[in-house]
């Protein structure tokens, strides 16, 4: 490269005095030991990921490319690496292995993981369940600030907020992990400034698409990790970027440099392979009593929200419960009546309780029996997992299935770890039906089962994918069946039909979904909030439909953008062999 002058090299040849000064009468065995000792001294401190044998194979199945990436990031890149695998290859697992190894070696006294807000809890769950690493998340009740815990997962925007920024910057972190590192592509943003000012010893940045708009993005991200690797911004532009900003030149030299800091595995080079997934959405006409209840709750939610937007969370909950089960709804309504004696809408709530009492048969309950029977008849070893969001619903579903003579297992967050393990073990051994809350969707795996029923539907597609991910994962060797249950003309149907199916969310991988959702989040929107706002603000049925269609268009755009970016990055890095250098 000719843009700079080379610095001087001074070579000193030391004479072999140290060799000749020693008595040559030593035995050959001693000389052999000396040679071996000298060779060991010159070797890499370690070439094994020593913590791997501690990992539970049932919790995490490590793939060769992941182990290799973790090894290279730790030992060949001195603990500062940009993990840029293509979407869906398990970058989180790679970081999990790295953190586990650092924990094993006690080099991780303080770790800060910065993620998009939507993914913080998922990171927490994965690290806990797959690697046994406990982190506190900024959304946890026990979170007391960035100076009060040593292992923290936080949304990057929380970390950079005025409230926390100083505390984050005051500390010297051992390890910084930055998920969706393209968030810091622009050097003029607060996010970039935060990372630039953070003090840390080791850093692992993750993104499938390091280049978002222009090649400068790559420069910015890499320069945060390894200042000076590309020289100055001007030199980078002059030397590596074609003037049209879309292509790279001097690719070999660039690859050499990137090899020092970036790891990019491609799908075609790995042995990641998933079986097919079949999704069957069943819609049912609610009974007149259920319809009346749904209408009353929806009206109540709409009215209450217009009066006080502060109660958004509980109103959202009611709207979700009404399509899950009368029991789930009743619990919340009663709690609301008990807790808030000054509540103005007591009468409305009492009348909802009346409507709940009028329900004799729960439509979904009856239809579930059909699905279970059908699935078990058609699938060998037809174990079934039924997912619901609510404990009350879970109890009802389980009781009914028991009364029908099925072997039923219940799984919820109230069990101890040991109990949870036992439940999964029993389910595997005895077969039958596992009725579970979303407590299981984080971590516990059941590849031995290949039928899943979504009794009710989380509005956040990541939650849906986490449920499916329990059975549709590496190690599953059968086709996976996903049944979605929805009552017609309810929010469930809108979410399913107008949003999830339109953009084919059931066929996206976790990685692909997170790309879409974090793009949405970047534009300042929360998925669940969006759904709720549209639901309560629509003036008519037609309005509501149009609103959901508009949201689907938005999602579709983000998905297209995510796909285009992935393609663009693949194009830019095409022909790059970012594997370990031979020398």
């Amino acid at each position, binding site marked *: *490269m000719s*843009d*700079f*002058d*080379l*610095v*001087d*090299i*001074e*070579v*000193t*040849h*030391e*004479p*072999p005095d*140290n*060799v*000749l000064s*020693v008595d*040559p009468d*030593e*035995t*050959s*065995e*001693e*000389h*052999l*030991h*000396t*040679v*071996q*000792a*000298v*060779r*060991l*001294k*010159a*070797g*890499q*401190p*370690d*070439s*094994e990921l*020593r913590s791997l044998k501690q990992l539970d194979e049932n919790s995490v199945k490590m793939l060769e490319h992941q182990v290799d990436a973790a090894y290279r990031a730790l030992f060949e890149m*001195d603990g500062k690496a940009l993990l840029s695998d293509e979407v869906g290859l398990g970058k989180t697992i790679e970081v999990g292995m790295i953190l586990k190894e650092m924990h*094993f*070696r*006690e080099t991780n006294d303080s770790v800060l993981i910065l993620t998009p807000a939507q993914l913080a809890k998922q990171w927490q769950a994965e690290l806990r369940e797959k690697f046994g690493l406990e982190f506190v998340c900024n959304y946890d009740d026990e979170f007391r600030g960035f100076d009060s815990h040593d292992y923290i997962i936080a949304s990057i925007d929380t970390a950079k907020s005025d409230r926390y920024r100083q505390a984050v910057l005051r500390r010297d972190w051992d390890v910084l992990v930055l998920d969706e590192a393209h968030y810091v592509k622009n050097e003029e943003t607060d996010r970039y400034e935060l990372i630039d000012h953070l003090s840390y010893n080791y850093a692992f940045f993750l993104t499938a698409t390091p280049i978002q708009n222009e090649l400068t993005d790559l420069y910015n991200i890499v320069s945060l990790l390894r*200042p*000076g*690797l*590309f*020289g*100055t911004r*001007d*030199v980078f532009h002059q030397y590596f970027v074609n003037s049209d900003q879309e292509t790279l030149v001097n690719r070999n030299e660039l690859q*050499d440099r990137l090899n020092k800091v970036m790891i990019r595995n491609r799908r075609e080079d790995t042995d990641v392979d998933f079986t097919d997934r079949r999704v069957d959405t069943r819609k049912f006409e609610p009974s007149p009593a259920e319809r009346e209840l749904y209408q009353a709750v929806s009206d109540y939610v709409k009215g209450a929200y217009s009066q006080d937007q502060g109660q958004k969370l509980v109103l959202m909950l009611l709207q979700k419960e009404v399509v899950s089960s009368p029991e789930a709804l009743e619990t919340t309504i009663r709690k609301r009546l008990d807790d808030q004696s000054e509540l103005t809408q007591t009468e409305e709530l009492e009348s909802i309780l009346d409507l709940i009492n009028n329900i004799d048969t729960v439509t979904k309950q009856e239809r579930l029996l059909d699905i279970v029977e059908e699935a078990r008849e058609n699938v060998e070893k037809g174990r079934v997992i039924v997912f619901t969001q609510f404990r009350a619903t879970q109890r009802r579903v389980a009781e009914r299935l028991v009364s029908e003579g099925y072997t039923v297992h219940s799984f919820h967050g109230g069990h101890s770890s040991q109990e949870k393990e036992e439940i999964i073990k029993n389910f595997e051994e005895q077969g039958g039906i596992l009725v579970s809350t979303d407590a299981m969707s984080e971590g516990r795996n059941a590849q031995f089962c290949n039928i899943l029923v979504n009794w009710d539907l989380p509005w956040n597609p990541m939650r849906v994918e986490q449920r499916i991910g329990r059975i549709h994962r590496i190690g599953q060797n059968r086709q996976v069946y996903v049944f979605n249950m929805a009552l017609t003309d309810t929010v469930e149907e809108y979410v399913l039909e107008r949003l999830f199916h339109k953009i084919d969310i059931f066929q996206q991988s976790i990685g692909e979904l997170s790309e879409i959702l974090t793009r949405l989040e970047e534009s300042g929107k929360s998925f669940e909030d969006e759904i709720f706002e549209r639901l309560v603000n629509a003036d008519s049925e037609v309005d509501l439909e149009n609103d959901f269609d508009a949201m689907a268009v938005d999602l579709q755009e983000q998905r297209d953008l995510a796909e285009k970016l992935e393609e663009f990055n693949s194009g830019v890095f095409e022909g790059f062999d970012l594997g370990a250098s031979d*020398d």
Partner: protein
Amino acid sequence: MTDAAVPVTQSAVENFTARYLRSLGCQVEIRDNEWQVTIPEGVETDLPKGEHALVCGTAEDLDESYEQLHPESSFFQSVLDDASDRAPLGGTRIDATGTDIIVPDWLQESPIPVSDIDFTPYYDRSALVVLFRVSVETVSEYQQEFLRSIGVDVRSKEILPHIDETFLTLTQSETAIVPSRDIAVKPEQVEQLVDASRKTLLSDIQPQIDKIHQGASRAADAELEEYRQLQRQREEELETKITHLRSRIDDLNKSIDDKNQTERVEALKERRECKSKLQEVETDLNELRRRREQGYPDQQREIRDRHGLEVVVTPVTVTEIEYERGDAAFELTDCDLTRILTVGYGSGVGVTEAVDCDGCGRSLSGENPLGAIANGVRCTVCRDS
């Protein structure tokens, strides 16, 4: 030349430590993960004498009476230090019987299979295998060290490309038993041979040094660029200051006549101070501009000197190896035709002479291997033409 460093795995650590300590006459009792080591008073070693309770791997909340044994543990580092200084000069022998015959690359790449090999040794020769530590240091990167081996024939001073590899393979084994041999080579010869191998060493390691060199140069350039920007910024600040001072002086000039005596004196005083300050700032600015026009030679020199590379080459072990020289007969079979090709060969060294194509006279190589044996020895190019 071969990279002589070996991966320092936990198993390598345990294996070496146990063998080394026992060879010194220490007692090592191993119970699962815990070792009880006794280093008796009479043992000649710098390791602390007495009892040591070791725990393999890293363990949390370890009792103070235990020491850890893993690649970075201080106990293991002491063992390595002790062992690496003990006998840097030694001798051994490589017999054909103890090593595989090395098939040259022009036969390995050839379509004609080797059906048999026979080596007949005629006489012994000596070679030195030197392990060199090359340390490259620069301010912008951590110090990097390489360990490289080179084999050189004692009599001819010719570099023997395979003997160091053979030696490293033999000594790599955890249960390596290398035959003992007295050292015949004299210290002056060792010095000459070490010097003779330095040139090859440096040219072989040049690509790595080049990479570090370029990285250091880039870092120096980036620092210089930063310095330039800072100076430019400083110039701008001074320019702004000058503008303010001039403007203040103008204001004072205009107002001096309108003031009463006391105020006038104050204003004149202030004007004098401003002018003096202005002169000072202008001098600073001119100096900055002058240095910019010259390209900041002092800074350039200082920064580039600081980022300069320091390469230190140190021979750390020398092994005299006695090996056998003779002829190797490679039996080659191509369809029904069998031919025996006899070439000079050394045990652990491989083929010692070049074999030329009977057609074009060029030497056979990995790139241009043996192509045919029907009409003498033919390279692939001649066979195809």
